[in-house]
């Protein structure tokens, strides 16, 4: 697709537009707005700005339903990242973004540049990045590509984050055949800034210099945004040249240089060069500032000789920033970038023409109005056909396991629940010296201290794709509810969420229905739980040869901890403690991991989410934590009560005994995945008072054992015992064994 001819002389036809991923109708709009045919450069610019990836043309209609405001919100969606108030004049700035398509084609660089991109979104706004998270979905462990993809993605995330020096503190990893052809790599970054030092893409005025900083522009990643807006087929490996190459060392320098410049007031507007690089960054700032731009492409620092205007405008070379400075501040800024040995070039200026004018080698290669690039971006209300509701499963169709303990062992060694130590030991989780809880501590949310204070940010990423597939609406609700629950479980006040909405081809009504259902569910949960959406990203066309991924609306949530001394993890259960279960248990087995891993069935409706109960139960648990009554807290999710108890036992290094309440058919109680529940370990002397005074459903389900290192499940008078050591070996053994090829 790359044009090597003189771009202005090369005739553009409707066929060229289609090659660029535009539709006939979209091309007709361009002809109308320009009053002529675009040249190649102009067409390239329209095609990336109007790509699904940049324009959100299929999703905007529905994204508008998400709540985005609240007293804590300083900046909602629309800027590089969301900004929320965390008190004391500071703000948390965060976003989650996908890098799915590139990571499948080239896992190391795809994942690495995903981390780099999301970090830039955060420090572009003036925040020092303080934490990274990632939500990964791989295909079935049996698929021939899975092992290599896991290896490459994990090495890429570590290789980038470790070098940049931002701790990777948590995340989630699932395996399912639904991702065999399209893995998901969703990375989240969280930063902290002073509220009076936040920088935006808006704010440019005419007559200001446009400055390029960071790495040089090369021919990598050309049309990456367009690639990420299409499905895969058998020839997808040929798209490797569209994947960018990461340089974390330059990113580290860019962070330091930008933050040093941001300590002054020289910047009028700033935007990182991510998808669609120079095009997107200049158009966004021009559009938001209501100005025109003139760029002299000869001034763009270039890595390769003889780059065309088309290549420069569409390159997605990494570690680059575009800034609009206040006039006269150029030399001050240049001195800082000199110190950090980064390229610095004034490449143009803002104008009052409202046009984007590009010159290259003395010739005008593009002269188009800015407004249509943003304002006239296509917006589709695509047809959607909701799938029929899944039939409930019949409890009598699900035989009880012969041994509850063995079922628990199988679950804890299953790919989704097995320890991910092999992954997180490759991530530097401690750099910056503010990590309080991370993947190793196994808590429901990671925690980083706000530097120099005794406050902390709790961070979690959540989504249960199998629920979303069975019922997009309930699944969307559940993703938000679980994030809320995980923040409450460590004693944090939930603030807001970012999302990364991964779906298949929206032109198919059944896929569009998944998207609409999930967004509607999320919107309801966000409203009910007081967690607005402040940033996010949509990744569509995650399909190969017509097979779509399970709908995966990943949620990243951030909460505030006012006093780190009060934090509770899952590892604090003490011998003799009473294990309390907060929330209602109905024994919902539909779409449970138990059903899938023990009975080989993936059917039934997902557990419904009662948002009011979710909120009440979360508040109740936060009160227990605030009063210092909870020794350990764990949300009850995948695998139900038995798995929650086992995970608490493993983390706390104490045995536990769980007593089932029925004469028979105890599997639903033990392994069912009813929502809105927490397991809380409390001192024996406090248990009675908590049970008596609770204003939500709380029941006693077991005990932490005074001496024995076992998990005991007592059901109908039969006791099943599993030594903790066996459970740990099974739990820790699966992933390293798998990666070694067993």
């Amino acid at each position, binding site marked *: 697709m790359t044009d090597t001819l003189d771009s202005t002389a090369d005739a553009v036809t409707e066929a060229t537009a289609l090659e660029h991923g535009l539709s006939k109708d979209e091309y007709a709009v361009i002809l109308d707005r320009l009053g002529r045919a675009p040249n190649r450069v102009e067409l390239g610019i329209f095609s990336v700005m109007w790509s699904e990836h940049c324009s959100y043309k299929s999703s905007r209609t529905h994204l508008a339903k998400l709540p985005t405001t609240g007293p804590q919100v300083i900046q909602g969606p629309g800027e590089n990242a969301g900004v929320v108030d965390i008190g004391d004049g500071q703000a948390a700035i965060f976003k989650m973004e996908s890098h799915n398509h590139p990571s499948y084609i080239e896992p190391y660089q795809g994942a690495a540049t995903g981390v780099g991109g999301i970090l830039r979104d955060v420090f572009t706004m003036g925040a020092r990045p303080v934490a990274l998270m990632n939500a990964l979905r791989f295909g079935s462990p049996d698929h021939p590509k899975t092992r290599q993809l896991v290896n490459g993605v994990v090495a890429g995330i570590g290789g980038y984050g470790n070098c940049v020096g931002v701790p990777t503190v948590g995340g989630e990893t699932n395996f399912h055949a639904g991702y065999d052809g399209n893995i998901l790599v969703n990375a989240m970054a969280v930063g902290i800034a002073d509220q009076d030092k936040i920088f935006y893409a808006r704010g440019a005025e005419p007559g200001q210099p446009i400055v390029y900083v960071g790495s040089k522009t090369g021919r990598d990643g050309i049309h990456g945004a367009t690639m990420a807006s299409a499905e895969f087929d058998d020839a997808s490996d040929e798209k490797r040249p569209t994947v960018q190459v990461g340089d974390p*060392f330059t990113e580290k320098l860019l962070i330091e240089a930008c933050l040093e410049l941001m300590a002054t007031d020289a910047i009028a507007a700033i935007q990182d060069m991510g998808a669609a690089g120079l095009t997107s960054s200049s158009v966004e700032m021009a559009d938001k500032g209501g100005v025109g731009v003139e760029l002299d492409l000869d001034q763009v620092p270039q890595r390769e000789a003889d780059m065309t205007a088309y290549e420069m405008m569409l390159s997605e070379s990494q570690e680059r920033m575009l800034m609009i400075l206040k006039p006269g501040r150029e030399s001050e800024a240049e001195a800082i970038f000199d110190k950090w040995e980064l390229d610095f070039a004034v490449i143009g200026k803002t104008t009052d023409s409202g046009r984007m004018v590009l010159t290259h080698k003395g010739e005008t290669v593009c002269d188009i109005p800015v407004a249509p690039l943003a304002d006239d971006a296509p917006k589709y209300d695509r047809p959607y056909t909701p799938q029929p509701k899944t039939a409930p499963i019949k409890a009598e169709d699900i035989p009880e396991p012969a041994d509850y303990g063995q079922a628990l062992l199988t679950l804890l060694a299953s790919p989704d629940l097995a320890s991910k130590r092999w992954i997180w*030991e*490759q991530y530097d989780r401690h750099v910056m010296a503010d990590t309080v809880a991370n993947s190793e501590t196994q808590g429901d949310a990671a925690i980083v201290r706000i530097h120099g204070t005794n406050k902390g940010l709790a961070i979690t990423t959540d989504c249960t794709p199998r629920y979303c597939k069975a019922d997009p609406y309930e699944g969307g609700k559940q993703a938000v509810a679980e994030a809320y629950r995980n923040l409450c479980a460590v004693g944090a006040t939930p603030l807001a969420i970012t999302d990364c909405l991964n779906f298949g081809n929206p032109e198919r009504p059944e896929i569009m229905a998944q998207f609409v259902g999930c967004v509607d569910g999320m919107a309801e949960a966000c409203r009910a739980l007081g967690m607005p959406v402040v940033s996010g990203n949509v990744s569509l066309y995650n399909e190969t040869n017509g097979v779509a991924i399970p709908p995966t609306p990943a949620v990243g949530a951030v909460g505030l901890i006012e006093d780190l001394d009060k934090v509770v993890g899952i590892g604090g259960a003490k011998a003799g403690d009473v294990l309390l279960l907060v929330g209602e248990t109905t024994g919902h087995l539909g779409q449970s991991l138990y059903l899938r891993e023990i009975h080989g069935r993936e059917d039934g409706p997902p557990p419904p989410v009662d948002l009011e109960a979710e909120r009440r139960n979360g508040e109740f648990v936060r009160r227990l934590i605030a009063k210092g009554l909870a020794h350990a807290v764990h949300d009850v999710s995948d695998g139900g009560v038995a798995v929650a108890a086992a995970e608490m036992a493993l983390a706390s290094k104490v045995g536990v005994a769980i007593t089932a309440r029925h004469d028979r058919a105890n599997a639903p109680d033990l392994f069912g995945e009813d929502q809105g529940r927490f397991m809380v370990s409390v001192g024996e002397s406090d248990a009675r008072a908590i049970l008596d005074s609770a204003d939500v459903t709380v029941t006693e389900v077991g005990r932490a054992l005074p001496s024995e290192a076992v998990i005991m499940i007592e059901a109908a008078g039969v006791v099943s015992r599993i030594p903790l050591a066996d459970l740990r070996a099974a739990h820790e053994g699966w992933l390293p064994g798998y990666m070694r090829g067993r």
Partner: protein
Amino acid sequence: MKSAVIVFPGSNCDRDCRDAVEKATGTAPAMIWHRESDLPDGLDLIVIPGGFSFGDYLRCGAIAGRSPIMGAVKDAAEAGVAVVGICNGFQVLCETELLPGALLRNAGLDFVCRRQDLEIANGNTRFTAAYQGGRQVNFPVAHHDGNYFADADTLDRLEGEGQVVFRYQGNPNGSARDIAGVMNARGNVLGLMPHPDRAADARHGGTDGLALFRSVMESAG
């Protein structure tokens, strides 16, 4: 006590080291940019922090080892000033030959980040005296190239002369003879892969690292 932390492009534990030294000694160190050629007068301690100096795009620590400031660091070391290189800083000290040996890629080939038990192999040094005979500490490790290598004669000499200061209990990277930290013959330059700067605060899960910096302060008098 007067101390300095050297900052290279790509250092990422410079702030962590500053905070740990300040906490241990009560005085914040000076932060010295690598392009400087002079150090402040009267230093008692120089810390070369962890990170990925120059991206580790060449051999780890190789470019930083040739930075302008390293001439001054060598002079200070020769004058007897205490120098501690942590993680990437250890690699830099090996590259400058202030310490013997080299750090190879981890035997398991992967980056490894974990909390690590260490044996204090020599408690009678400028870096370990404040442990007061304690034999075991826990500092996190986080590195890709921490596999300590030296020829057998050098290793024998290091062990014989008490220059092995820390040993791994459960070797995370294949290091020869479980060596986690070594010092020079004179006993004023220490390099170690584990991070005392990340065991400096109750929130880190332990404060074992503080006594290392306190030892230097106490020996400085």
